[in-house]
């Protein structure tokens, strides 16, 4: 078991290094460079000064050499400086990461709770009216463009009804728990909907499949109550496919967080990556993207560990 985890962590590290190389090169191919952005904001900069700055920042060196420098720095825990924020990248990223984790975890928990609740409900009577309505809701959740859903929620609940704030993390001068929670309602709902739709479909399919199995019939024959049959006997086996999907969903969840944070003006990782790409903040964009990759890789690892626990026949070899 320990060996399996160790090997998977090494694999994840390898993927991260490869990704850092790919992203580093892609970012180097984006329009302009950080010095252009500095020069654009300062009319006193002469071409000589620009060239000098490029030299100081090492931007005149070949990309491969720059990557080598970055990698050896990163190996020692130095991920560079953020150009826009003028602080070490990790100092900028950490608060944003916490805020994004808050959003992602809440969105994930809501999606899982709704996905399981509605998925099981739909599977109890496949083809019935409840199943049809839940299915429609699931398809709507999968099919709606996240940014447009955010727009429509803002239009309805903020612009028309004035029930909820249109964006931000907290009101100025307030910032208590209730205020922060009010600011989270629309972002979490927006983020959770897509996941909910996917989970409903997988939970429903897996439940219908397991409800037909012999051990469920045996449980019924023993006289177990229906609630126990569904929740204890069928659900455990039906957990396997949804768990895979849930782990793989973390990548999409991060993309969703990026959109949600941009739409609701929440200063989190997603919005920070977006702004860093637009503002030529190389180090910040790179580290943000690598963090996002790391989160997805670790969630995949956790899914693999969960399999072993859910189905003892699967060994982690």
């Amino acid at each position, binding site marked *: 078991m320990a060996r399996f985890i160790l090997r998977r962590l090494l694999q994840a590290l390898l*993927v991260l290094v490869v990704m850092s190389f790919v992203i580093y090169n892609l970012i*180097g191919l984006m329009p302009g460079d950080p010095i252009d952005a500095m020069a654009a904001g300062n009319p006193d900069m002469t071409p000589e000064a620009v060239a000098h700055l490029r030299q100081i920042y090492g931007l005149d060196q070949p990309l491969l050499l720059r990557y080598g420098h970055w990698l050896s720095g990163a190996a020692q825990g130095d991920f560079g400086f953020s150009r826009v924020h003028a602080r070490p990248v990790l100092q900028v990223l950490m608060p944003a990461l916490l805020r994004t984790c808050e959003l992602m975890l809440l969105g994930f928990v809501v999606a899982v709770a709704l996905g399981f609740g509605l998925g099981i409900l739909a599977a109890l009577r496949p083809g019935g009216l409840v199943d049809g309505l839940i299915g429609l809701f699931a398809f709507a959740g*999968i099919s709606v463009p996240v*940014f447009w859903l955010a*727009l429509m929620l803002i239009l309805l609940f903020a*612009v028309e009804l004035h029930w909820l704030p249109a964006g931000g993390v907290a009101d100025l001068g307030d910032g208590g728990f209730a205020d922060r929670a009010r600011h989270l309602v629309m972002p979490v709902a927006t983020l959770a909907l897509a996941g909910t739709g996917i989970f409903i479909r997988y939970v429903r399919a897996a439940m219908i499949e397991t409800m037909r199995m012999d051990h469920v019939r045996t449980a019924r024959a023993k006289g177990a109550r229906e609630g126990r049959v569904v929740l204890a006997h069928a659900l455990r086996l039906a957990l396997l496919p949804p768990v895979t999907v849930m782990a793989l969903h973390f990548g999409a969840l991060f*993309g969703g967080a*990026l959109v949600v944070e941009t739409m609701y003006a929440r200063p989190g990782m997603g919005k920070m*990556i977006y702004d860093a790409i637009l503002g030529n903040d190389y180090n910040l964009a790179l580290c943000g993207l690598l963090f996002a990759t790391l989160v997805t890789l670790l969630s995949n690892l956790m899914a693999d560990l969960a399999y072993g626990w859910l189905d003892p026949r699967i060994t982690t070899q």
Partner: protein
Amino acid sequence: MTLAAIDATPVLDAALGAWHLRFRRFRTHRAGMASLVALVLLLLFALAAYPLEWLTGLDPDMADLLARFDPASARHWLGTDEAGRDELLRLMVGGQISLLVGVLATVLGGALGLAIGLVAGYFGGRADAVLMRFTDGMIALPLLPLLIVLGAVDLTKLGFSADLAHSGAAAFWRIVLIIALVDWTGIARIARAATLSVKERDFVRAARASGAEAFYMMRAHILPNVATPIIVAFTLTIGRVILFEAVLSFLGFGIAPPTPSWGNMLNNAQELVTTAPALAIYPGLLIFVTVIAVNFLGDGLQHAFDPRSQP
């Protein structure tokens, strides 16, 4: 002979072939049929741009700053947008772009995924291990941030001329290619699994024993037998690709204005929500309806292709 007569002739059933039976099963899937109709209507709506342009002489890209935010009128049926352009015509042309990106990126990405999945499944061993580790690695990546970085790449730095790099065609093909490059993993896995399940069947082994080459084997024996799950996966991918195009164009990394797409028509939507909410609603609603119809169509096809499903 009428269709009803054929239906009543059981002897002919076998001769009608699997596809006819599948279509018959598909017809019983109400949501799937409704989606097929909706998609045909959406396609006709997008193509109606040509007669509308010809009849009215409107130009979807021509700004008229004296006619900004005009309400609906006989000339502009849905009014005009923030640059005074005809909203209805832009919705139609934008629909052509969005649908075309959806289909093209799916076909290209699907072909890539299909090739990888077939090769991995058919040859097995080391090829399989390498290709599938690569696929697993791709699946673990956060796609949207990656697409944004790819969409931000400056083509002039790759050696393309400035004119070409900033043309509308470059923006169009760039988004098709980058989505195809990242969204092929699902189809690769399905193709591999389906290949594994047929490659040890007797007819495949017989063909191999009689000396058929690998490429011929895959084309003639494996591909037709893995077609059904692939078709379903293709359908579902189109929906996802349309959503990717919409969000990328919305964020400014996709189809570049003045060329409209349903995504970039919402570029200014955050301000429009308070001033002209209808302009923020139409394009998103069309994306939503298209994607939900595509997904229901995929569901209907799955139902039709699964022999265990009730007719």
